[in-house]
């Protein structure tokens, strides 16, 4: 309305941008992939009451590790991608180990420590792309050289959707669910998450659960970071372009899924649609991206604010007179 655009038109554009065409769906899937990978990892952590807010930084560290492999380590072409994903996972997990260590050793609140490390990771990437890793062929721009093609992920048909990470995301969500349900470790994780005091009484190591969930969620975030640079950008660039806040949005993905990895399949797709629909608004209606962000923020806000009501059942009762 502020832009003299009918809200109906805006919503139409929004939904078309998210689901309206094969292209729109592919854009949505592109956003869904990192949200799914990170979100299912965070679901595990949140289930154990380990509040990893540092996925954004862990994504970036995965991307950094991948870039290092692609541009500087240069392993044999056949295994480049494999090494990238492996090191990317380890980089994300390693970055998440810092808050895990601080929490278990010094009882430092992991929310704060993991959040702060996001800013560190952000600026490490900025430093790398403007300094030592600045591309030789990019002139004034701040990003690295393009990866060799052996470090590119294949995409689905004509789209920009890397199938390997899409497939991984789905598998991870399902595996995460089975991990919680069927394994002894998943069982311990749920006991710790539900009642740390009972876990202590039973002699279950809370420390082990903290390390495990931090490393899994951090590792999956790193894995997602590799997917972004290897599948979409093919170089390391400004951190807010590598991750469109996926590390933060994935918190909501995991949370809306009630920390159930299987449910992140749905919530990640919904929030992916929110991002791509917002892009469509920006492109076709010329709404500034700040306004789109406010719009997206409001949708999320109302989603979260009303989530509570999902616990209630609507029942109509006749008023008793007298």
């Amino acid at each position: 309305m502020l832009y003299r655009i009918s809200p109906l038109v805006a919503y139409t554009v929004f939904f078309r941008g998210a689901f309206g065409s094969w292209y729109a769906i592919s854009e949505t899937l592109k956003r869904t992939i990192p949200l799914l990978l990170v979100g299912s990892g965070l679901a595990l952590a949140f289930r154990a009451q380990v509040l990893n807010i540092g996925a954004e930084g862990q994504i970036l560290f995965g991307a950094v590790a991948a870039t290092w492999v692609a541009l500087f380590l240069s392993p044999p072409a056949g295994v480049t991608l494999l090494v990238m994903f492996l090191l990317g996972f380890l980089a994300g997990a390693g970055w998440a180990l810092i808050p895990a260590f601080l929490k278990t050793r010094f009882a430092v609140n992991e929310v704060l420590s993991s959040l702060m490390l996001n800013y560190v990771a952000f600026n490490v990437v900025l430093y790398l792309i403007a300094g030592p890793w600045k591309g030789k062929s990019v002139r004034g721009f701040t990003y690295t050289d393009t990866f060799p093609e052996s470090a590119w992920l294949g995409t689905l048909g004509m789209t920009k959707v890397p199938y390997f990470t899409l497939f991984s995301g789905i598998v991870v969500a399902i595996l995460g669910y089975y991990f919680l349900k069927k394994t002894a470790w998943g069982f311990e994780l749920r006991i710790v998450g539900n009642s740390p005091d009972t876990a202590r009484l039973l002699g279950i190591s809370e420390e082990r659960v903290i390390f495990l969930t931090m490393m899994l969620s951090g590792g999956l975030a790193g894995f997602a970071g590799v997917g972004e640079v290897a599948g979409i950008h093919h170089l390391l660039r400004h951190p807010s372009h590598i991750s469109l806040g996926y590390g933060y949005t994935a918190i909501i993905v995991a949370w809306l899924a009630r920390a159930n990895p299987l449910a992140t399949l749905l919530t990640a797709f919904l929030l992916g649609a929110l991002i791509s629909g917002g892009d469509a608004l920006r492109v076709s209606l010329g709404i500034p991206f700040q306004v789109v962000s406010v719009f997206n923020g409001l949708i999320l806000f109302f989603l979260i604010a009303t989530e509570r009501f999902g616990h209630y059942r609507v029942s109509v009762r006749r008023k008793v007179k007298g």
Partner: protein
Amino acid sequence: MEMDDVVMEETPGTNAGEGSGVEVAFRSVTKRFPPHIIANDRVSFEIERGTVHALLGENGAGKSTLMNILYGLLQPDEGEILVRGRSVTIPSPQKAIALGIGMVHQHFKLIPTHTVAENIILGLPSVPFFFPAKREIRHIVELSERYGLRVDPRARVWQLSAGEKQKMEILKALYRRANILILDEPTSVLTPQEVEELFTTLRAMKGEGKTCIFITHKLNEVMAVADRVTVMRYGKVKATLRPSETSSQELAQMMVGKKVIAVVPRRYTSREMVLRLENVWVMGDRDFPALLDVSLTVSQGEIVGVAGVAGNGQRELAEIVTGLRKVKQGRLFLGEKEITHLTPREIASLGVAYIPEERHLGLVGSMSVAENLIFRTYDRPPFSQGFLVDWGKVEAHTERLISDYHIYPPFPALPVKLLSGGNRQRVLLARELERNPRLVIASNPTAGLDVAGVEAIHELLLKAQEKGAGILLISGDLDELLKLANRIVVLFRGGIIGEREREQWTEDDRRDIGLMMGGVKR
């Protein structure tokens, strides 16, 4: 006897303002907690001005309820309260404070990051908005000197010991010009030295004409400091008398009462030791020793009862045997194996079952009955070969336990929090006893259960004993111990003050144990 007292003292008490008279009078005060509990049943007695009046009784005798009524936290259903001769209703603690009544609770209600002075003046309307504590410090210091309550008003509350916090609470009441001070089991958190200091303070307050009401179940404290004592049992006043006119024995008898003990004589034949504590010292949470040089054994098939008033080291005893608390000095053995430094998990896997006092710790309410039943065994055969849990086997196991232990309703997938207290306790016992433990540590296993629930739990414990388990039964309920135990040790202030072994418990034993619980050696 109680009626005599009331009649005798009614005359001088009814008029307010005379030199010595009645400060507080309870007239037929009744308080019910529906549906079944009558916490106070027509309670009548009087408290004289300028005296220390002890309120003596076991847990659940109704002492705290009565004092909460006086302090305005609860409303009586019937009866009246007279303060300085005038009938009053006390709808809130504010009103109680206005009437000059102060209360020091068993659990302190303080703000740990604020200073002593700030906590004392907190919430008073007369306090200035800026730098509130500064002006009042002098007044606080003066009060603390007058009553021997030495606390640094500038110290932060989290730095204080339990004793200092209590002094602070007393200061807080005095600062609010309390003439009547209620102390709810004030000595339960204190060291012996601090208890002496508290008594000095009480005497000083008495000297100033203030009245102290002192809730306790320790006989020696009554004998040491009280001018008069009211004994309560099952919500009724048994007697009000002067300690000088009675004896510890008589008081103990009144407090514990005479009950027919249903004795089921049981013999255990084996003398094979299951648990042995050798000169064990343990620090409590408040940084003074909770157990001092305790030695104790439990044999195969023996039920050893640990009697004592809560807070005399029982919790710490359970925690060291299960590995949840570190031993400071001394050694623990399970059979021949030393377990002093083992983890809770290692000790549990050696065959030690634990029924913790805090029931919510043993179970996770949001998880299912089936899940709760495998908390000890989920990572070992037959339920797991290492990584995966075989839920098919768990299901079968759960259904068997549900029928063996009569868990109702019989649904394995039901979250435990939806079960009744008694059924929750059955789930816990099913899990712990199913492993055929060598040793069972049970802490107040029947607290808060109804009669049927209590019976069921007792049967389960006896069945475990029959199978040869040694049982350490820690209970605040003396009747429970007399019903089940082969041997009873009494914990008092972290030490074993006495011990009895019987095939048949007698009324004398009950009296003696009651006395020992109050700190009197027999």
